[in-house]
């Protein structure tokens, strides 16, 4: 099990590399680096699913680049950069439980109240999803039809769903805060965690490799001219002002 801090540094390495390069070959390579990681984590389905979620935005990025005069290759490169950024973070979050994240934040000296807030928020997502379904059921039982009406009406129809959800989220937060205080939350600045994260040899190895590879990437970026495939597809000049 990888220390989440090492995992995060590796994630940031890929993230920074994707931001560094605009060259399509480099970006393809950076994207492909993730694959062995996905293999090791055995989360193909979930990872593919998270990329599908960003598909719309990816297409939008491609179209916006292309329409405003960039070459086909450049537009593809920008799209790939976006996809890489999104997928590497998805990969991080889907392989790290909120508990581990919380531990990592704490032991990275983030104030405990902040890391706890973050972990609790993540943990409450499925609970709130269930609540949302109940609210929808309750309002439908009062005759609310969510699939009828024009665009404006449909948006207004969500008010009877959002308000109970927000109110119950606020109520839950207040109750949680009171429960926490009754159990001594924040009483002592010296918290002793039950599980102490220790970086193992493999974690240090991963961090070192990330730094070295990134240094190499910077070198390549500065001093090695990378080829660009010449695909002569460009947006026809139908708009004279671009």
């Amino acid at each position, binding site marked *: 099990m990888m220390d989440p801090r090492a995992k995060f540094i590796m994630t940031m390495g890929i993230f920074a590399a994707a931001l560094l390069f605009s060259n399509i070959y480099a970006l393809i390579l950076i994207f492909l680096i993730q694959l062995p990681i996905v293999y090791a984590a055995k989360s193909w389905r979930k990872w593919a699913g998270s990329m599908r979620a960003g598909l719309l935005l990816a297409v939008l990025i491609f179209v916006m680049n292309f329409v405003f005069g960039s070459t086909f290759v450049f537009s593809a490169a920008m799209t790939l950069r976006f996809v890489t950024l999104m997928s590497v973070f998805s990969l991080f979050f889907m392989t790290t439980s909120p508990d581990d994240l919380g531990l990592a934040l704490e032991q990275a000296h983030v104030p405990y109240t902040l890391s706890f807030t973050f972990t609790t928020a993540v943990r409450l997502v499925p609970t709130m999803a269930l609540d949302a379904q109940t609210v929808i059921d309750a309002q*439908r039982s009062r005759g609310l039809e969510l699939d009828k009406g024009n665009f404006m009406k449909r948006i207004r129809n969500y008010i009877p769903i959002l308000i109970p959800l927000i*109110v119950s989220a606020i109520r839950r937060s207040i109750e949680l805060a009171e429960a926490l205080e009754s159990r001594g939350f924040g009483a002592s600045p010296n918290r002793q965690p039950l599980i102490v994260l220790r970086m193992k040899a493999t974690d240090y190895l991963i961090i070192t490799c990330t730094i070295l590879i990134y240094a190499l990437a910077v070198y390549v970026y500065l001093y090695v001219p990378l080829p660009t495939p010449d695909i002569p597809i460009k947006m026809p000049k139908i708009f004279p002002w671009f």
Partner: protein
Amino acid sequence: MIETESLRFAYSGSSEVLRGIDLTINDGEFVAIMGENGAGKTTLVKTFNGLLMPTAGRVKVDGVDTHDSSVARLSRDVGLVFQNPDHQLFSETVREELAFSLRNFGYGEDTIDRRVGTILETLDLTRYAESSPFVLSGGERKRVALAAVLVWNPKHIILDEPTIGQDYQQKDRLRNFIIQLNAQGKTVIIITHDVEFVAECKPRIILLSKGLVIGDRPAEDLLTDGELLDKASLTRPQIGALMHQLRDLGLPEHAIDVYSAEQAILHALGRKK
């Protein structure tokens, strides 16, 4: 009339919650659905107004298969009052809250005013008409949620755990109100764990366990069947338990409410009141 035929239901990707239920609830009946947590009580009633569609078998409300209708249409006749009023309340005033469903069903503003006024009086909520539902106490919010369903006068009313969080007086008032609704000819179905509440009003009890009906008898019968009660994690009501202990003295076990027990004891003592 609400009928189910071999009703089965499973949430997607999960095991079956309802495993073959055949029931008939006639118009104007008073029914309590009881059973342990996870038995499928709430899931069952959600099939009555179309919120959930059977994965096998069918549910018919007044002759109409729920597959051939919609939640909005079925809700006109089947009013479901959810357990937690905070999952429903969203309006600026109690009056607006009550008008919500009537607007959804397409009633005119005059009718809405009239009906809202009536239900406010019936449930003793008139003084809160212009208050925000969020500032009311727990018990009052539950009354508003109940009013919000009764306002459109559905034929069949389902109450999911109406006694939770209510003090004794409120429960008493609620019980009398339910009896009144039933007397007006409405079908009343309550989901409850509250054996004491049920003992005093003696409905027909449908006992669910692990997705199946394991008992369907009048309260006096079912709440005195020790074996059945054990299977469903229920206990005898107090009066019933007392009569059970004293059964060797010839006292009738089926007297599970205060009035019947009083009569039986007086009779046994050779006394009249």
